[in-house]
């Protein structure tokens, strides 16, 4: 009997953020105008979540391993600028430019990882510094301006995260959202079913134990930061497809939204805990709140207060549940 109870409780634990998302959504269905519950709005919510959600996939890995990455916001901006520059100045095609954006993100992520493991400086400090370095680099590439891209060079990139045209409606949501979903499945499977995934959890749970057990701690960490860099670069590509200009000042403080998504989703900043499903639910919860508030005609400042409160409440609930199950 007790075992069954525990299983149910455990199930609730992992599903908690998802239930929270469903709850928040239906709350707004009840109190917001009918325009909130339209399919069109769901599509809008999904498209708005894609950037934060994609970056948050990488952040989930980082936070499970007990680290933090404050440079994601800047890396997204760098991705945006890099894609624009590659399209406009280097004259590359959309695929090559997109891959270039992801690669440059991965490169800076790799540098983060190397600095953290080889210099033995805590991730908070390394990525805090990198946040400024990368933002500066993005501004430098764009020469303190926005890089305008000729519309004919954009090709399919402008549709990547745009509303679907009627003849594309069979896709339900735009390709960018699909990509986020597929990557989420891959990351979730990787965390649960591969050695790399178990090693990430082990490092976050107890780094000394991982080292004692022969886990190549440094190598795994460098890999994790490289991955979050790549995810941030991809998020930059998505952001670019929404903006269609290379704006180096975009995604300011985005890292905080990304961290919030992971934390609302049950990730623990002390490491060892977190899930992809939770993270996505966390990212969606934040968009649903801002969308709902918008539809109700509430000002931006109300949205911010509500979102801030949700973060604290979500983590407080999480701690409470920990005490219950411990």
């Amino acid at each position, binding site marked *: 009997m007790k075992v069954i109870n525990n299983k149910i409780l455990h199930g609730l634990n992992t599903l908690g953020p998802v239930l929270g998302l469903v709850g928040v959504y239906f709350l707004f269905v009840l109190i917001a105008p009918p325009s909130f519950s339209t399919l069109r709005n769901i599509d809008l919510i999904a498209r708005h979540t894609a950037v934060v959600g994609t970056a948050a996939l990488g952040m989930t890995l980082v936070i499970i391993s007990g680290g933090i990455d404050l440079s994601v916001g800047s890396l997204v901006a760098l991705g945006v600028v890099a894609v624009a520059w590659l399209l406009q100045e280097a004259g590359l095609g959309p695929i090559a430019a997109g891959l270039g954006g992801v690669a440059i993100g991965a490169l800076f992520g790799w540098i983060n990882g190397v600095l953290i493991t080889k210099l033995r400086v805590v991730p908070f400090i390394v990525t805090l510094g990198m946040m400024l370095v990368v933002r500066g680099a993005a501004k430098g590439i764009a020469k303190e301006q926005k890089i305008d891209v000729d519309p004919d060079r954009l090709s399919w990139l402008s549709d990547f995260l745009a509303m679907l045209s009627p003849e594309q409606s069979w896709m339900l949501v735009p390709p960018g959202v699909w990509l986020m979903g597929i990557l989420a499945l891959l990351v979730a499977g990787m965390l649960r079913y591969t050695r790399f995934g*178990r090693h990430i959890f082990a490092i976050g749970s107890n780094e000394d*134990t*991982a080292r004692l057990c022969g886990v190549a701690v440094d190598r795994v960490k460098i890999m994790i930061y490289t991955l979050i860099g790549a995810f941030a670069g991809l998020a930059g590509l998505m952001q670019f497809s929404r903006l269609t200009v290379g704006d180096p000042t975009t995604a300011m403080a985005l890292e905080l939204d990304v961290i919030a998504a992971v934390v609302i989703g049950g990730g623990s900043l002390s490491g060892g805990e977190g899930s992809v499903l939770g993270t996505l639910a966390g990212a969606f919860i934040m968009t649903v709140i801002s969308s709902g508030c918008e539809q109700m005609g509430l000002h931006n400042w109300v949205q911010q207060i509500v979102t801030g409160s949700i973060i604290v409440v979500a983590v407080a609930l999480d701690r409470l549940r920990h005490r219950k199950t411990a």
Partner: protein
Amino acid sequence: MAPGVAQAAEAPLLEMEGVSKRFGATVALAGVSFSVRAGEVHGLVGENGAGKSTLMKALSGALQPDSGRMRLGDAVYAPRNPLDARRAGVAMIYQELSLANHLTVEENILLGMEPHRGGFIRRREVRERAVEALSHFEHPEIRPDIQVGRLSVAAKQLVEIARALAVGCRMLVLDEPTSSLAQQDVERLFALIAVLKKQGKAIVYISHFIEEVKRVADRVTILRDGKVAGQSATDAISPAEIVAFMVGREVEDLYPRSHRQAGEVVLEITELSGMEKPRSVSLQLRRGEVLGIAGLVGAGRTELLRALFGLDAIRSGSVRLGVYSGAAGPRHRWQQGAGLVSENRKEEGLAMTMSVADNMTLSRLRGFGPCNMVMPRRQHRATRRWIAELGIHCRGPGQRVSELSGGNQQKVAIGRLLQHGVDVLLLDEPTRGIDVAAKATIYRLIDELASGEKGTGNGGKAILMVSSYLPELLGICDRVAVMCRGRLGPARPVMEINETQLMLEATGQERV
């Protein structure tokens, strides 16, 4: 009523009567009665889970009993929280020390009750009171202005006791005070306890070490399954009787010794030196043999194991493990067939928030699925085998190790080596902080591994074991070597040595 030593000696200072506590369906305490007089040391023993810690939590106000009465001195004693208890004069000295490492000794001693005027700390008074509290011990090395983080474990413990004395406590509860102390520090602690006793403090002494309780306590209470299983003056009861009360049956033979066949040399260390310790250590370990390393804490025993396992840097010397020679990191040591059980189970040995299965398979996540995949079901199946063979009490492979008792956690840590299938086991304090029954299981396991009755592969394993507990080294090992100040003496068969001799060598009084 004039408070006097004579009067205090008769009436108990603390009296507990019929104290009960249940958690859900589990009865943790079932009507326990217990008393301590001023100027008395009362030993409290029992296996893990017998109710010792629940009893102490009730005493310290960390939890409230469901029923029963407690009296302290002339008043009803019902602390709502630990601060309450401390104000009433009851202080706990826990196994895990609770000092702020970055503060100085005096700041720690007066933490939370700093004398101040308008919020400004009166430094001179702090110093005076700290010096006064420290004057009870003869430890000039503990200066009031030194940072606590720089002190040894033994010195930290004294600071903690000084803190209790500075509050003016009447009763001290020591929970496993010697578990991380070397022999000489244990002696100094016992001397201190004698002084406190003379000052009329009541002391509750909780320990797994029955010999210690015999030595230091006037009376002993044995708990089993939340009840008082026995209570006696310490002089009137033998260690064997105490153990019998603890486990509820006779322990036939704590240290089994099957036929062991010493085989080829599988580990050979030649003049190995670390950054500070060890210093030029050589030894040979054969298959089918248990080699013990005795010595004081800080002698460099842990450092020796860490250096040869690649966790600490090696300065010179060589290590040959099976057919491999040369330095290597932990990852390669595992691949070469060696495994280490850390002395520090909570901080290094186990990932506490992970499951039994994850912990047991962490060093070798292979063979649990196609192409480097780890299928939890296969991982659990492999783990179940060791749960059964080692008798680990848990709900299943998926349970978090933090929820297990110390003894079962230790079995998980050793189980990792068996699951990995290592030939050379490096065990650092494998029985620290676990109860007698779990110790007996681990002794039996070590014996079975050495004689080749258990474990994967054929033939006996080679076991290198560090311990501060001499009876267990003499009981379980084939040969024992003593480490002192980073140097290792020759390994000699246990038949040729005794405890006194090991102690003399460990304290550096006798060079061999």
